[in-house]
């Protein structure tokens, strides 16, 4: 990592976006006071992870990329025993577990083993476990990777609830819709450096246009990007499509037709964070 200069305010939901291998997880491990950093300064909750690691870790919650629940314990025991690692009393963790089971919608499965749970349930339990110490800061490393849409939306709703309760959250993701849903502010990372920073809406405004017109042609009738360049702010040629970035997609669509081009299909959509992301980090595979 080089020059990852960010500041996250209390109560804020902050995102690290980037392709695989961009350095998101490594950054998260340093913030979580697990990996040492070779240089630079880092303050978490006003303390230095190099000095006060255990004290910081006692006040944060960590949701790792891979679930690491204890398969030898039941759902409830996973919460209670994890709470005990924080030095919380038996009575406290017992009551807290009931509350968290409710939060994660796992009350009916409380005394089941962890193994037969679905991926979404395990993920919810991992998040619930990270809340056992009422953390002031929650670190979520790709919280919804591998979940079905229902499970993702339920998780987003729970994370939004935590935000309303004032829990600061730092999220890594490569799902742009997730970042748009959850983050107040985010940075896009690539190759260990920050390439852009802002709110989701601000980034779209800065790096993309309001709308995108996607055109598909037959190979014989396809115009080149240069043919259409004067019609839009930016034209991007993909193997199968032409993307025209403009404030008013319908207007550009009419102009394209007036210029005599006959696309097979045309789609006007709002610009998304995904357009920003692809523009900044490129379309080729990172690895």
């Amino acid at each position, binding site marked *: 990592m080089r020059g990852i200069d960010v500041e996250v305010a209390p109560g804020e939901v902050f995102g690290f976006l980037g392709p695989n291998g961009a350095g998101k997880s490594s950054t998260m491990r340093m913030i*979580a006071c*697990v*990996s*040492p950093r070779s240089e630079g300064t880092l303050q978490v909750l006003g303390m230095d992870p190099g000095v006060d*690691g*255990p*004290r910081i*870790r*006692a006040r944060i919650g*960590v949701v*790792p990329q*891979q679930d*690491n*629940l*204890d*398969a030898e314990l039941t759902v409830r025991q996973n919460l209670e025993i*994890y709470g005990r*690692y*924080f*030095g919380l009393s038996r009575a406290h963790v017992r009551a807290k577990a009931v509350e968290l089971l409710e939060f994660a919608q796992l009350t009916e499965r409380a005394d089941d083993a962890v193994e037969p749970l679905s991926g979404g349930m395990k993920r919810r339990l991992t998040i619930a*476990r*990270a809340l056992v*110490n009422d953390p002031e800061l929650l670190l979520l490393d790709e919280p919804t990777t591998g979940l079905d849409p229902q499970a993702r939306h339920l998780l987003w709703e729970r994370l939004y609830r935590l935000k309303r309760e004032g829990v600061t959250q730092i999220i890594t993701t490569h799902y742009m819709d997730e970042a748009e849903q959850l983050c107040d502010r985010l940075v896009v990372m690539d190759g260990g450096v920050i390439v852009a920073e802002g709110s989701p809406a601000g980034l779209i405004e800065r790096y993309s246009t309001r709308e995108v017109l996607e055109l598909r042609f037959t190979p014989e009738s396809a115009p080149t990007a240069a043919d259409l360049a004067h019609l839009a702010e930016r034209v991007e040629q993909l193997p199968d499509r032409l993307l025209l970035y403009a404030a008013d997609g319908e207007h550009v669509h009419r102009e394209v037709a007036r210029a005599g081009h006959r696309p097979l299909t045309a789609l006007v959509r709002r610009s998304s964070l995904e357009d920003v992301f692809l523009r900044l980090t490129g379309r080729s595979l990172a690895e």
Partner: protein
Amino acid sequence: MGFGALIDGTGRAAEATGGVDYLVWLAPALLAVSAVQSAAFESTYPVLSGFKWQRIYHAMTAGPLSPEQVALGHLSWTVAKMGVSGAVFVGVVAAFGGVAGPGIALSLLAATLTGAAVAALVMAFAATVENEGAAFNGLFRFVVIPMTLFSGTFFPVDRLPGWVQPVTWISPLWHGTELARDAALAVWRPLPVLGHLAYLAVLLALGLVLVQRSYRRRLAR
């Protein structure tokens, strides 16, 4: 115990055990062997699982626990389990008349100390293993099993060829077996006892240093 009956049946056991009933002679050594075997088992696959399969160590160190504390916690649990299963074993052997006196309680302590030393060293090694591969199989086949066969458990080491005997001295199990057997048979030989204790204590201390170091290296990177 069947083994003992066979040997006793030939009348040759008494000659090797110094006149002691074979079961009484064997029981404290089996205590040490089972401690070492469960130490080796509890310190291999469960350790790799903590780092790699279930990754519960990573969950623990995400909280205020340090890698060193996780290492010591796992080791303490292994030692506690050895102590409890050893106590049950003593109860069973006593029911079959294999316990000569209260010294067996010291045998249990000696066996547990031996197991603790082995567990700490094996954990330190297991924490450096990235993939299951053949590492643990090799450990069991080429270290643990030979150690159980040639540490004076089933027969006195003086029955081995002379050149093999010094090899048994490096085996922690031999030291543990000597301690456990002397305690069970109420034999008091101060110098050898001190020597065995010192050897095991040094191994345990070394194991404690190494296991904490290897857990830190694996978890804080």
